[in-house]
């Protein structure tokens, strides 16, 4: 299944299909992006990251694509499994207004639901 549009709050896919979760980021100066997975009642877990000097990075069953021209980030999950059910957040690096530190700003998340 493929999400249409950006930042869908919920994406439902069939088990075994590929999933694509999209994210739009706001700051053209951001140079580092992360995808996190958050299962119900747990803290977010790092999945994969990508730097702005790359267009694509692959991990185990996951691929992140970065399109800097349109400030768009996507996470592709191959052969989706029931354990992939979770909320997925994208994050970009961010410089705090208070100074002295930098960190991450998070998107609102997409809930991935796996249908048997």
């Amino acid at each position, binding site marked *: 299944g493929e999400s249409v549009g950006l930042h869908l709050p919920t994406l439902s896919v069939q088990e075994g299909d590929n999933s694509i979760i999209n994210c739009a980021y706001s700051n053209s100066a951001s140079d580092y992006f992360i995808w996190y997975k958050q299962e119900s009642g747990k*803290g977010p877990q790092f999945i994969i990251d990508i730097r702005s000097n790359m267009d694509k990075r692959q991990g185990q069953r996951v691929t992140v694509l970065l399109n800097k021209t349109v400030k768009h980030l996507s996470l592709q999950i191959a052969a989706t499994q029931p354990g992939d059910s979770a909320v997925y957040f994208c994050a970009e690096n961010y410089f705090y207004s208070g100074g002295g*530190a930098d960190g991450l700003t*998070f998107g609102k*998340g997409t809930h991935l639901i796996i249908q048997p």
Partner: protein
Amino acid sequence: SQTIHQWPATLVQPVGSPLSLECTVEGTSNPNLYWYRQAAGRGLQLLFYSVGIGQISSEVPQNLSASRPQDRQFILSSKKLLLSDSGFYLCAWRIGGPYEQYFGPGTRLTVT
């Protein structure tokens, strides 16, 4: 390896009562530490971050405060809880670059 602990896991408190949530990190030194709040079905809102002992910065003014009495200990507090303080509180740490943060298991706070 590094681990991060938060307690309590769940907490139910009446409006107007005080709050103290604790976060500790093991296996690393001088980490950056962060407190986030997550309302039901929502994203993560950064509340506080700290780059060292006694150094606290706030991104969002609110009814909460934070302290870092030790290198690997980060505490979130309130003198009087509001209903709007309910949520899932997450602590995270980071050391060096890049920007990846590692999250604790979270504390579910319900203010009644």
